[in-house]
């Protein structure tokens, strides 16, 4: 696969506030790459740098090997699907989709066929003469995609395009976008703060935080092998505890020595230990490696979400077995369920479920969405 876009050591700040801090990223042809991170992490700015709406303070943007820092948006073979679609309210559906072709002075009949083709692809045939403001959110979304694709760009940038849709529609559109990407073979650069969306759609995920790239990898990589506490916490649920690497494949945490599969750390090096909630087994008290007290149980449908106090640290455990509140239980963790990470600036910030509540989580999600 060829690199189609390269970002090299890019730094960008607004009003003295650093938004992108020396990031480098390669985007390959024909891939579905997702920039994932909480609001304010710099993912949208990265997208706008590629689109040409911002220029880096330092560093380079390369498109197929060519430096394009100063190439204005209209001269880049890159199109964007905007967050609120940015459909032109004074033009109807057809004219919106035809806009880039008219800009390029494409012959009239070719415009006709290409627009029809696009509208067919996004299942909007028959809507040509509707006013865009009379369409539903999902339909507007499709128009925006058709409009961005009709000019056959090499890269399509999508800035949280699904954020405004309801859950059901969102799931459908995720699938549809994936299909369109496969069908057209165009590189998609997708921005989202929704980790589930990222995991289900992407070939590559770029996890960003505070203007820096935390990890680049496939969905499996970032889930199973998070590089630091931030990634571990942001993607899925994680219990993150302090540990000490006694030797390769032996780690001590929560007052117990565990076998694990990681190695390559210094002797007695302090590390962050990640254990996913679904990887902890509950056993009767005394039979486990650890023991604790259940402080809360929430029924989630497929499983229970159990918060267990282990030596003052609150763990989250997902289990299909019911345990009661205040029950004393034992816990078992298999070696391959233990993931060891180097200490980072995020150590100690995440992974404790002391103040956890579902409600709270949703609230903060909504907040980050709103402020984006």
């Amino acid at each position, binding site marked *: 696969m060829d690199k189609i876009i390269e970002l090299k050591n890019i730094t960008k700040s607004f009003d003295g506030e650093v938004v992108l801090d020396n990031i480098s990223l390669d985007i390959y042809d024909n891939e579905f790459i997702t920039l994932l991170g909480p609001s304010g992490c710099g993912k949208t700015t990265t997208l706008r740098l590629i*689109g*040409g*709406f911002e220029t880096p303070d330092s560093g380079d943007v390369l498109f197929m090997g060519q430096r394009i820092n100063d190439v*204005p*948006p*209209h001269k880049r073979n*890159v*199109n*964007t699907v*905007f*967050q*609120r679609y*940015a*459909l*032109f*309210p*004074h*033009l*109807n559906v057809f*004219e919106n989709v035809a*806009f*880039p072709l008219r*800009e*390029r002075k494409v012959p009239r009949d070719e415009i006709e066929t290409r627009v029809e083709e696009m509208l067919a692809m996004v299942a909007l045939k028959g809507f040509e003469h*509707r*006013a*865009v*403001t*009379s*369409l*539903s959110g999902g339909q507007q979304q499709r128009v925006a995609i058709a*409009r*961005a694709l009709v*000019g056959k760009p090499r890269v399509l940038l999508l800035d949280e395009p699904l954020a405004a849709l309801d859950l059901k529609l969102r799931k459908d559109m995720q699938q549809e976008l994936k299909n369109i990407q496969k069908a057209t073979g165009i590189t998609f650069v997708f921005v989202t703060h929704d980790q589930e969306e990222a995991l289900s759609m992407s070939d590559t995920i770029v996890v960003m935080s505070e203007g820096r790239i935390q990890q680049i990898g496939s969905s499996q990589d970032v889930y199973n092998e998070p590089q630091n506490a931030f990634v571990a916490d942001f993607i899925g649920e994680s219990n993150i505890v302090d540990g000490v690497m006694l030797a390769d494949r032996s780690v001590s945490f929560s007052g117990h020595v565990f076998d694990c599969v990681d190695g390559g750390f210094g002797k007695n090096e302090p590390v962050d230990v990640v254990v996913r909630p679904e990887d902890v087994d509950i056993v009767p008290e005394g039979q486990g490696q650890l023991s604790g007290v259940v402080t809360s149980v929430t029924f989630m449908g497929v499983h229970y979400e159990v918060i267990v106090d282990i030596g003052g640290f609150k763990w989250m455990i997902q289990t299909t077995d019911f345990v009661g509140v205040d029950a004393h239980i034992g816990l078992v963790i298999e070696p391959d369920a233990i993931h060891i990470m180097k200490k980072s600036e995020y150590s100690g910030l995440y992974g404790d479920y002391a103040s956890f509540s579902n409600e709270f989580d949703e609230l903060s999600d909504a907040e980050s969405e709103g402020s984006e």
Partner: protein
Amino acid sequence: MKKASKIFTALMFLFLFAPLVILLVFSFNEARSLSVFSGFSLKWYRELFRDTETLKAVRNTLVLAVCAAGVSTVMGTAAAVGIHRMRSKYLRSALDMVTNIPMINPDIITGISMMLMFVFASRLLGLANSLSFITLLIAHITFCLPYVILQVLPKLRQMDASLPEAAMDLGCTPWGAFWKVELPEIMPAIVTGLIMAFTLSLDDFVISYFTTGTGFQTLPIRIYNMTKKTVTPDMYALATIIFFVILALLLLSNLTDSEDSQKLRAARRAKRAASGRPPMDPRRRRILYACGGSLAVIAVVAAVVFAVTETDNKPQVLNVYNWGEYISDGSEGSMDVVKEFAAWYEEEYGRPVQVNYETFASNEDMYAKLSKNAISYDVIIPSDYMIARMIDEDMLLPLDFDNIPNYQYVDEDFRGLYYDPEDMYSVPYAYGIVGVIYNANVVDEADTGGWDLMWNEKYAGQVLQFNNSRDAFGTAMYRAGIDVNTTDRSQWDLALESLLEQRRSGVVRSYVMDEVYNMMESGEGAIAAYYAGDYFTMLDAQAEGVDLRFYYPERTNFYIDAMCIPSCCQNKELAEIFINYMLSKEPAIANAEYTYYASPNRLVYEDPDYIEEMGEEAMAILYPDWGDFAEKYNTYAYRNLDNDLLDYINSLWETLKIN
């Protein structure tokens, strides 16, 4: 509740439209009166279309409004875009604040501030006249701009910021994105701004009053300057026509609306499901867009062309500055002196001449503008005391009487008077004497004869006093036998006492200038001091049950208005030819008959036709036998007073007014 609100709405619209109905009705009135309807007539419409000066003022007003609206719309839109894109918060809020200034500053301050600057700037640049069409246009653009910006800016802020980005993303240049996406989005706001700017410019009087210059009088200024006589009913006719034109335009726009209404309804139905505004039919939008755009372009082009042609001094232009309603203007079958002069001149000299005839409301008004070098005229017609002052200040040029042979017809009585003792600077145009006009059906003959009538408490609430300081003080001083030109301030204080007494005792009903006509004609006031000539104007229009009479008190004001050439004159010979023409028989008689003022010209007052036309009674009043005119004149006429004293009198006048 529903009913109450309907009644309220109806009453409000009655209130809003009552004056317009009055205008409409009285524009068809046969008589000059504006309070009694005496019969249907289209006379004032005919007068209006004959009144070239008014038509020119209408044209000027429209040209100005179109130019100001066009330029301010284009510049304001650009400014709004600029402000919107500005990154620096401080600069943006500073500019926001500055933009608000003309809106929260009273007109009068905006007007004065600009006038001060223009005058100062032109003095620096050494320009002959600082005020012109350009300054007027600048002033109008300045006060229209904020309205445009404040219409467009919110629309830009409402607009999804990613719209222009999307356009660029899809292949538009930044320019293209602006034209194809942003502009259509903000077009409704631009059109609203344009209409607002046009309306404001059309209606403005105060700012124009301070910033207009030679050769460009707008309608509001012309109306304001009609104060020496009275606002003529042809203005009512004009207002009525404007009303119907607007009505027609509105109906037309409503009609085109209803054609689209079906489509709109469909769109609205569709929109109900989604959010956002109703989409506009692209075709209609394009039309609107094209109209707005082309209007703005035309306006800007017109403004430029007009500015160039207006300032481009044509070889033969004569600028005349006179009192409002002070020349025979062709109304009611009279001679249109200005027009006739142009025709006569072209025949005589084989060259065309363009006469700009403009008016002022008072000597002081004229002086204020001339002394600041704000304007430039070739012929002016001020009053005696102002002539003295202007000679004193080197503001007049000596006349070459070889070019004014008709000067020989000016009576000897009018030579060597105090204001121009050597007869170098002025040629008398008209003169008059102030007398007392009274309604004989109210006033007892026995009470008449002197100034005391105006202080007689028997007629409380029926006396009309002058609404300008010099004339009002004059009545009190003539009554008390004080020299009206005294420099002794205590004497002026005495006169103030007298005026205060007149006011406090409730004798004075109103302080009036041109309102005197209406009020005396209708019988609203019973006693007024005013100029002899004007008495006849009132007599012609007096209502039923009113019987106006006139007499001269023993001591009273004599005044002479004379033609002069100010030092800013551009074409002295032409000006002298004009003055000479004004002294020749036909125009002189026409003017005398039109204004009803006495003429110092033998060709006039010895003309049998004129005498017959005026009638015996009028001749006796207009040309009374005072014995030695010059002596009386030199005793009683107003003289120029020094600035400090004028300032003092002005403050005494304010004292009278605040009580």
